[in-house]
């Protein structure tokens, strides 16, 4: 119960920050993808069941809030991310900052690649422009924020899994 409540709390906090009109942490129009960072962490820490369920929930909420014509797109990609990262639970150990940075960067970039490819219906000029303008710097930014945020989430995880 504590684990579930803490997970909901983390997701709602990330969602509120991401949706905030304050543009928290925005640099030159690029923001870190907090929801994806949380999903990466949850999937690697909890496995593929939690990964795919969290991915679907986060993606679905994101879809609802965005332009409704994209309903299902975020959910689809985040389910894939959650499941495949969850499958890596116990196989990779992210102890160092550089390892965490690398995995968050790779996942963010792959996520955006897939997302914008479908979003732009394989039309390459806007796809490439968005990848260069937003996805690449976004992945670098998210990886930097994410690798630091993982330390905080580690502590929170210790609290939520502690015996009551």
């Amino acid at each position: 119960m504590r684990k579930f409540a803490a997970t909901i709390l983390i997701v709602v906090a990330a969602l509120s920050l991401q949706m905030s009109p304050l543009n928290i942490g925005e640099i030159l129009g690029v923001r870190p993808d907090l929801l994806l960072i949380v999903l990466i962490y949850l999937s690697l820490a909890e496995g593929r069941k939690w990964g795919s369920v969290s991915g679907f929930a986060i993606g679905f909420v994101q879809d609802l809030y965005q332009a409704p014509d994209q309903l299902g797109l975020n959910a689809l990609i985040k389910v894939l991310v959650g499941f495949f990262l969850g499958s890596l639970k116990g196989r990779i150990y992210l102890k160092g900052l550089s390892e965490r940075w690398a995995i968050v960067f790779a996942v963010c970039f792959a996520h955006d690649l897939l997302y914008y490819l479908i979003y732009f219906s394989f039309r390459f000029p806007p796809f490439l422009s968005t990848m260069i303008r937003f996805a690449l710097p976004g992945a670098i930014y998210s990886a930097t924020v994410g690798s630091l945020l993982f330390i905080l989430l580690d502590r929170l995880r210790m609290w939520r899994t502690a015996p009551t």
Partner: protein
Amino acid sequence: MQRLVDLLVRYRDQSLFTVLLLASVSMLLLREDLKMEGARVVSSVLFAPIQRVVVLARDIVDLRQENRRLSMLVMKLAYQNDQLAELQYENERLRGLIEFKEKSRFVVLPAEVIGRSPSRVSSSVLIDRGSRDGVERNMAVVTAEGVVGKTIDVYPETALVQTLIDRNSRVSCVVSRSRVVGILAWHGGFLCTLEMIPEQGDVEVGDLVVTSGLGGVFPKGLRVGTVVEVGAEAQGLFRRVIVRVSADLSKVEEVFVIAGGGLGEALELEPETRPALSTTVTEGEAERSLIVEGDIE
């Protein structure tokens, strides 16, 4: 049947993944009106309270700073008010003399941005005005800098605004200097392209682009952006015209919804002139409506 249940239990992670995957794909394949309806219901129930909490927190933090700024502004405005009263008297006297036609008034509603698309390509924003305030679908949304977009979905207390950098946005515009008409569409990033400009069309870098008033949504003469690049398209039939939008769509916080008096009509403003905003102040003032004045064609 028992065998199927056993299989599902044994591979429950994979089964769950498959179900969620199918659910996502099914949503993607839904008809657009069903998606809109679903998003409308959930957004109004789920997001509006969260956004209100976020806005409230921001308001508390900004209150002290805002108070100081407003005190300074009151002093400045009181001085300007005296000057304006003098000018208004003079204006009325002169208008009577040369028999100017009565100027029509153009009502706009101030609104606050309470949410934006979590996607890093900000294609839409949520504002705190809805159908209860008189907002309807396809109303123009502007800032003092220029056009932001139009309302595409209206809820009782909020409305979703499609910005100029949404991939589905199309706005009929005109180059203010040469009066060449084109269709503004998103190009990528914070740039738009002015489409359907003929090869011989007179467009130069630095030209101001304003709304043409032809689409029936945006009144004529609202500032949209500035031409930053002109070239030839590969096919050679049209010119490639890139426009940087005037409003800072990544940071927009307060907007105005053009809520009446203008649809189907056109504002006649000098292209270089921004709409002049003036607050209608009444005794025991509760209304926040603003008036934009301009000639009606």
